[in-house]
């Protein structure tokens, strides 16, 4: 096989891989920009994937069948926002330790999706899901057309959300509020910004996006659901936010880099290169640790009050 075709194959595979972690990381970016470190992202993705799968699965035979996928996506957004609200209650209102609470939310989402799935469905079943939609004209451009314009509609949405969330963060009053409460909540409070409300809003938006990311996995990528469908992608998304230095464009770069590593690992197996399977699978996770170690200088660019609960009445 010539190198051009190999690169093409790796890149074509990488773009769909990047969608779920990109969506979740863009959402997590809103959380962290508002000063809340949401490790429960992974659990929210599990629930999003479950709800996104369940609704079309149950509506398959009924009169609502044509709207199954849309309702699934709406349900995933809703359940994500609801779990974001729960996390906001725990970390913002009660001021609980965010790291531990995040692990709790992850277990809750993971366990709940598994329990409900086993009860209501049981075995492995597929749904039709959301089908790929090559963009007319553009998809016929040599090389680039195949890499970028021959994917699932949700992939296009995810990529459009990169500039959208940049605009939201940097060009709107709400984005300024979010960045303010994450950087200096007391100053923001003094200026009349409602810190608690802004953090709630950011967490719900982030949760909804994580839910959507989960629904992408079950509806568009795998077209099925299982306990280990999400497989730690939520944690990878959190790491991507660090790597991307809290900017949507940086996150896009990180997501693409990470997915290229993943698709390269899969392609190696297809090409028949002798390499222990287990080590190939662990490659992306090793990459995350390396990336986090290299990104330590970037910490100063991040929201300075990340992880600290804000207490209005606390004295200095």
């Amino acid at each position, binding site marked *: 096989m010539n190198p051009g075709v190999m690169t093409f194959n790796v890149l074509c595979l990488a773009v769909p891989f990047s969608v779920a972690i990109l969506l979740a990381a863009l959402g997590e970016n809103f959380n962290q920009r508002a000063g809340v470190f949401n490790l429960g992202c992974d659990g929210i993705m599990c629930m999003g994937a479950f709800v996104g799968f369940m609704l079309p699965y149950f509506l398959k035979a009924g009169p609502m069948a044509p709207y199954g996928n849309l309702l699934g996506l709406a349900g995933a957004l809703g359940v994500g926002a609801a779990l974001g609200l729960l996390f906001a209650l725990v970390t913002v209102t009660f001021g609980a330790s965010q790291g531990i609470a995040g692990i709790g939310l992850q277990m809750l*989402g993971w366990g*709940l999706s598994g329990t409900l799935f086993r*009860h209501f469905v049981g075995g492995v079943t597929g749904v039709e899901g959301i089908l790929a939609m090559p963009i007319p004209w553009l998809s016929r451009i040599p090389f680039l057309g195949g890499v970028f314009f021959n994917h699932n509609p949700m992939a296009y949405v995810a990529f459009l959300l990169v500039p959208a969330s940049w605009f939201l963060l940097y060009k709107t009053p709400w984005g300024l509020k979010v960045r303010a409460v994450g950087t200096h909540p007391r100053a923001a409070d003094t200026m009349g910004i409602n810190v608690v409300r802004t953090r709630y809003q950011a967490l719900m938006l982030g949760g909804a996006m994580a839910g959507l990311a989960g629904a992408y996995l079950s509806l568009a990528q795998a077209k099925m659901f299982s306990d280990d469908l999400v*497989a730690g992608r939520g944690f990878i998304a*959190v*790491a991507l936010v660090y790597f991307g230095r809290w900017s949507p464009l940086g996150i896009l770069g990180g997501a693409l880099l990470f997915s290229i590593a993943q698709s390269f690992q899969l392609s190696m197996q297809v090409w028949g290169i002798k390499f222990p399977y287990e080590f190939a699978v662990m490659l992306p996770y090793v990459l995350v640790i390396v990336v986090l170690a290299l990104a330590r200088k970037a910490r100063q660019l991040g929201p300075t009050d990340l992880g600290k609960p804000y*207490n209005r009445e606390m004295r200095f």
Partner: protein
Amino acid sequence: MNKQRIIFGGAVILAVSLVAALVVALVLFSIGASPLETYKTILMGPLSDVFGVTEVLVRAVPLLLVGLGIAISFRSGILNIGAEGQIQMGVLASTAVALALPGLPKGILLPLVLLAGALGGALWGGIAGWLRARLQVNEILSTVMLNYIAVQVHTFFLRGPMLDPNELETGSGTPQSMRLPEAAIMDYIVPGTRLHTGLILALVAALLVYVLLWKTTLGYRMRAAGAGAKAARYAGIPVERYLVIAMLLAGGFAGLAGAVEVTGVHHRAIEGISSGYGFAGIVVALFGMLHPGGIIPSSIFFGILLIGADMTQRSAGVPANMVLVLQGVIILAIVSAQSFLRNSYAQARLFRWWSGFKPKKGAQP
């Protein structure tokens, strides 16, 4: 002061248990199971005969060991989520040593095997500690990633270099190691059950952790580093060094738990041997208020829950994943209750919201 703390702890645990029981009852109700019946099976089922009680203790041993390690790390201000991976590294290291030195007498081999397990886990935990201390890598993320990596390393060894030759020749190719030599296997306490001497080891470990954390300089410094890194650094405590030590110890206890599972229960390394003990250990430690005196009963309680959940899966068809939901809710409730009961501002605000009194527009979310 101490009495006050115990009352505080009791109030937290009570509130948390109530909330968790209610939330899980809701989930049980929604999947068509009777919450009361399920709770009865989970809590009473395992304790109905001697065998059940010993099985609960068999589950409590790894939970206790892992919980002790996690308590050390949490008290030192480093959140170890990686016990799951550290257990698997302990399993690999202890199995490798036991299989490599089959001729040694029991008095030497068994301690050596346990030590190897602890070292394996400590090494795996130490990586995350070092990354945090030297490169400021968030320990939660790194330990989670190390968990995924450990699963692959574990599978690689069990399918490759450590695979039982008999499995290749005559067996079904199940990924598992050879059976350990007799000298590396723990004795049973109660004949006819699986309760092994690892229980005594775990109880001694609990005592040692208490002494370490509250009666030694090392423990004092670790707790100081966890309570306030800035103040501790100002007092001349090299916080980073104690973070690494805490992670080494936490990993060591998780690795020891893995070694105990191998030498006491399975007598060989198998796939899925950690079976969620790493995550359950976090809940055990938090539910025990990060104190050995609380972690012992808490590990027994979660041992009951694990056995009980298996029983309800068989008898009532309630999926055993339910335990994960319960654990998640308990964690969320426990951290909320702890900070809420310390935070008078939040209490006042919740009270205002509850009584419907609104001082001014926009004062609450």
